[in-house]
């Protein structure tokens, strides 16, 4: 391995590539060669350095300098100053990190990085950088020192639970598959991260794919699997590419294939792409999809650990579960179980999105409160608004109000509060969010993604959507709330898979915590948050309007009239209440009634 004195990481995120980061990368490579520094400075591309707003961005190591807004003609100067003379250029550097949105920035004090420890630090396309960070040591340790039963016992003692959302103990799952007698067993990694508002798995797959590959090889050794599949969403092309590179490199290093590390253990894996069906995140549907069929769930038992992929015993875990395994082996189960709460051990990654100042990826130990996540890690609510609700666990989760902010996050407590852990999406909503509209939005998603196999989910979610749409349109009737409640109970009880069973959560939780909003919509025909279009009107306040014409120019239906430099007015008959005028107005002159 050649040693470089300096490394340049160029952001290859779509947003940065669009701004020309690949051209910058080529210019850097050319300039470095022309100065004869090619053996001293290495140029790599990696996803996500900053927030890409100031792309193209690069990071220079070991100094950790963050250059932004680079242009091609600045590169010769940059290379000469930074790499030939060793002087950083303050003018090109990113301003010190403040309250800015970032997907994976510097960890805050409350964060602990286990799964994300390498993301953004190593070149995900280079196995040697992963090995340099103790990569594949856990595998070597397992293959040389432990029997499969000892591996399972270690994982069991660590208290690791399925990170896909259900929280089934991973060690127990492995031993169930191990105990099933069969000459062929399969291992599957669920990378079908379909929850809107969640991108934890994508970041791990793109930033540190080898940790997942290593975790899977260890799991395969423990349960006796010979073939593995990573089922990844088609919407994540970069993740698929990075995984394929990782698998190829692992194969070239003898870490996959026949006789891994010279032992009798053989295992190989491939990536299978999904095709945009949310329900395929459910394990039995995912199995059907890998088999090349419609991804419809089936009743359990038999569980996949007994009868799974192609009828053989199959162990399915989430990306994050596998990524935890190498660290548990290396640092020991006691280290892992020292973090978290009584029943939920270790850390969990969350994708924090919505109306907080710092959106992005976080990794925190279980037991942290929602308040700490929103206000300490997330930096509070944007634009000085009030916190209203936090929606956890994707579309099958519920909305938790201010009263639940001091809840300690773990599997049990979230379920008790009427939400779920889910895969880890967290969307924060401020006081401008209408909870009935949010419920309608999620029901629209669920109804659309229902696979149609079982009646309660197929028909029930559609009826619930109709009722919610009616309420949002100001046509809600007396008795609608009770009807919703009845439907919720039945759909939850009678649906086949997690999608149907979780479908009512968002309605149940919003009815419980924000019932007054439903009542205002139905009985007073008012939308307290001023969101539902049928129940609001836009007006221009003549005393604030300066007649800049910004609203009139941006109105999609030409409902705004008025002369330049004189107050404008909105015609309520043509206005579609899209709210664009309010967004573009710099004088705060648009009033919503």
């Amino acid at each position: 391995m050649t040693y470089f004195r300096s490394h340049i990481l160029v952001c290859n995120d779509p947003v940065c590539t669009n701004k020309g980061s690949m051209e910058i990368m080529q210019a850097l490579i050319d300039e470095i060669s022309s100065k004869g520094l090619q053996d001293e400075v290495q140029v790599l591309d990696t996803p996500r350095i900053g927030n890409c707003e100031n792309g193209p961005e690069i990071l220079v190591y070991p100094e950790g300098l963050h250059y932004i807004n680079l242009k091609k003609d600045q590169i010769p100067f940059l290379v000469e100053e930074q790499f030939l003379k060793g002087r950083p250029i303050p003018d090109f550097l990113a301003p010190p990190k403040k309250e800015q949105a970032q997907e994976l920035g510097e960890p805050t004090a409350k964060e602990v990085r286990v799964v994300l420890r390498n993301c953004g630090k190593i070149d995900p396309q280079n196995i040697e950088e992963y090995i340099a960070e103790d990569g594949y040591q856990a595998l070597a340790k397992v293959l040389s020192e432990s029997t499969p039963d000892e591996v399972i016992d270690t994982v069991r003692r660590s208290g690791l639970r399925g990170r896909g959302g259900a929280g089934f103990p991973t060690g127990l799952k492995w031993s169930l598959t191990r105990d099933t007698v069969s000459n062929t067993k399969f291992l599957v990694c669920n990378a079908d991260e379909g929850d809107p508002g969640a991108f934890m798995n994508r970041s791990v797959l793109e930033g540190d794919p080898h940790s997942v590959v290593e975790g899977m090889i260890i799991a395969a050794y423990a349960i006796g699997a010979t073939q593995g599949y990573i089922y990844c969403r088609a919407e994540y092309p970069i993740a698929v590419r990075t995984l394929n590179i990782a698998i190829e490199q692992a194969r070239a290093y003898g870490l996959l294939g026949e006789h891994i590390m010279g032992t009798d253990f053989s295992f190989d894996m491939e990536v299978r792409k999904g095709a945009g069906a949310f329900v395929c995140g459910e394990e039995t549907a995912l199995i059907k999809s890998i088999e090349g069929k419609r991804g419809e769930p089936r009743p359990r038992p038999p569980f996949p650990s007994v009868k799974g992929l192609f009828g053989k015993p199959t162990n399915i875990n989430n990306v994050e579960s596998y990524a935890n395994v190498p660290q548990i082996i290396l640092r020991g189960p006691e280290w892992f179980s020292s973090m978290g709460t009584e029943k939920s051990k270790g850390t969990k990654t969350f994708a924090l999105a919505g109306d907080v100042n710092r959106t992005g990826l976080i990794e925190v130990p279980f037991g942290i409160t929602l308040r700490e996540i929103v206000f300490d890690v997330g930096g509070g609510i944007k634009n000085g608004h009030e916190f209203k609700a936090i929606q956890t666990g994707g579309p099958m989760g519920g909305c938790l109000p201010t009263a639940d902010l001091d809840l300690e996050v773990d599997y049990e407590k979230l379920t008790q509060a009427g939400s779920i852990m889910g895969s880890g999406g967290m969307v924060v909503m401020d006081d401008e969010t209408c909870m009935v509209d949010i419920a309608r939005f999620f029901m629209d998603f669920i109804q659309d993604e229902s696979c149609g196999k079982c009646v309660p989910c197929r028909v029930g979610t559609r009826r619930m959507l109709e009722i919610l749409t009616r309420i949002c349109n100001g046509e809600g009737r007396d008795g609608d709330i009770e009807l919703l409640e009845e439907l919720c109970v039945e759909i939850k009880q009678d649906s086949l898979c997690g999608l149907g069973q979780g479908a009512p959560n968002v309605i149940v939780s919003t009815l419980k915590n924000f019932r007054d909003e439903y009542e205002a919509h139905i009985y007073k025909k008012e939308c307290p948050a001023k969101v539902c279009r049928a129940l609001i009107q836009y007006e221009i306040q003549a005393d604030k309007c300066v007649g800049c014409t910004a609203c009139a120019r941006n109105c999609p239906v030409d409902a705004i009239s008025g002369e330049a430099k004189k107050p404008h007015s909105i015609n309520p008959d043509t206005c579609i209440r899209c709210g664009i005028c309010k967004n573009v107005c710099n004088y705060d002159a648009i009033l919503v009634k």
Partner: protein
Amino acid sequence: MLNTITNTLQIDPTQNPELAAQIDAILEEHRNKPGCLMVVLNEVQTKVGFVSEQIQDYIAASLHVPVSKVHGVISFYSFFTTRPRGKHTIKFCLGTACYVGGSPQLIEKAKQLLGIELGDTTEDGNISITMEACRCVGACSQAPVVVVDDTIYGRVKPSKVTQLIRALEKEG
């Protein structure tokens, strides 16, 4: 759009040797994998851009499975399209963060500019633009997100939608 499709040459592998050769290559590469149907359809969708009924017939015959099975898979997954798309595709993310972040307004703006509904394709002369809504693309911290062809644009404002569409029209 329908007018252009009547040209079956474009979508029927039995009449279009070039298309047939492209599909054959995909079939040969993957036919021995277990559960190959999904892999084949995924590749065809990516490389050809659509899986027309004629292509479904062709694949079914080649893999010796009933065409109903192929169509069953096609109709189940939203990634597959049976009609050729426009030259450019503009997609609006309707994930939670983007929805809360204002993507409905962006869609409104684009509808007005393009004069079509979601899922439709424009037909002005040589340029055709397909407008779609999509589920979360996993770029939630950049919400609201618009995907033009394969490029993701984050923190999009309605005025940016105008720019993006004008750029596509200019590019042709």
